[in-house]
């Protein structure tokens, strides 16, 4: 591209476009985050490559991992037993690193429905689901879930029979939870990959239920 064309249309093609910087004013904390990273790289605490790799690792943590774990538990009773015993070891056995902080699986049954929250901060099984959604970190969810879980469920469009007990698990910095939903009816012929598609992030937090492919 030649560079002698008219620039009066308001931008310069020579500049690398940085939408996150140029589209909106930067904040004090964005500057601080940039500065902290650069300072720690200069000091040799980690390298720029370490930082890039860590961001890639972060991007690889999505609810699809959690769904894969649940589909395996639905189809493999030995795996399910291991999962209920120790989530971190069980997922490692199928090649999924769910991180260092212990995660406990809580199993939904026809009698009991489980939900997870972190009232004190926003502890979450990040290793299996990625970062928590904004609503999980909201004051409303953190405050109300332990007092009126059924009202919260209804805001997510989830209604449970009155005789189902709802148990709410308050996560901590040292112990996280993962809901093991019930396998929907009408899924007997489905393989693991198709079952995983029924499992959404919100099912694993316990605010919704997996889709029933039969629609019943």
């Amino acid at each position: 591209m030649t560079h002698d064309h008219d620039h009066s249309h308001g931008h310069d093609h020579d500049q690398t476009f940085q939408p996150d910087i140029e589209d909106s004013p930067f904040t004090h904390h964005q500057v601080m985050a940039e500065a902290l990273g650069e300072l720690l790289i200069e000091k040799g605490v980690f390298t720029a490559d370490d930082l890039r790799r860590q961001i890639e690792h972060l991007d690889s943590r999505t609810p699809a991992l959690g769904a894969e774990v649940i589909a395996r538990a639905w189809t493999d009773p030995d795996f399910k037993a291991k999962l209920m015993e120790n989530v971190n070891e069980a997922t490692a056995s199928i090649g999924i690193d769910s991180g260092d902080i212990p995660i406990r699986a809580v199993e939904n049954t026809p009698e009991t429905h489980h939900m997870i929250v972190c009232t004190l901060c926003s502890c979450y099984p990040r290793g299996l689901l990625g970062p928590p959604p904004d609503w999980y970190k909201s004051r409303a969810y953190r405050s109300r879930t332990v007092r009126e879980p059924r009202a919260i469920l209804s805001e997510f469009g989830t209604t449970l029979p009155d005789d189902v007990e709802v148990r709410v698990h308050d996560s901590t910095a040292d112990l996280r939870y993962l809901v093991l939903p019930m396998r929907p009816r009408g899924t007997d012929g489905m393989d693991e990959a198709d079952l995983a598609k029924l499992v959404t992030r919100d099912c694993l937090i316990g605010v919704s239920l997996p889709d029933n492919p039969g629609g019943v």
Partner: protein
Amino acid sequence: MTGPRRVHDMGGQDAGSIPTDGHESEPWEKRMDAIRMLCGQRELLRTDEMRRNIEDLGPGVYNELNYYERWCAAISNVLLQKKVISVDELGRKMAEVEKRWTEARKS
């Protein structure tokens, strides 16, 4: 309940509807997350230190900052307390970044 609650301890209180709007992680938020993990792996930052420093921000700052801004403040505080970085170094680097970004936007 005994004693006054601290700002982060909100379980059981009244609050409004669950917000339905959300946002994808922004680049600077991912960077903050990665810095946290890397400092953790190098034993410069434990989960409990992170938590305590967020709780110690106090009601004013806690409510004013968003999620990753709290992280940013807490992580900086831990690294300052441990003398991994100094206030002076951080201040200079922030001024440098701000100058660079401001110039990039002008051109």
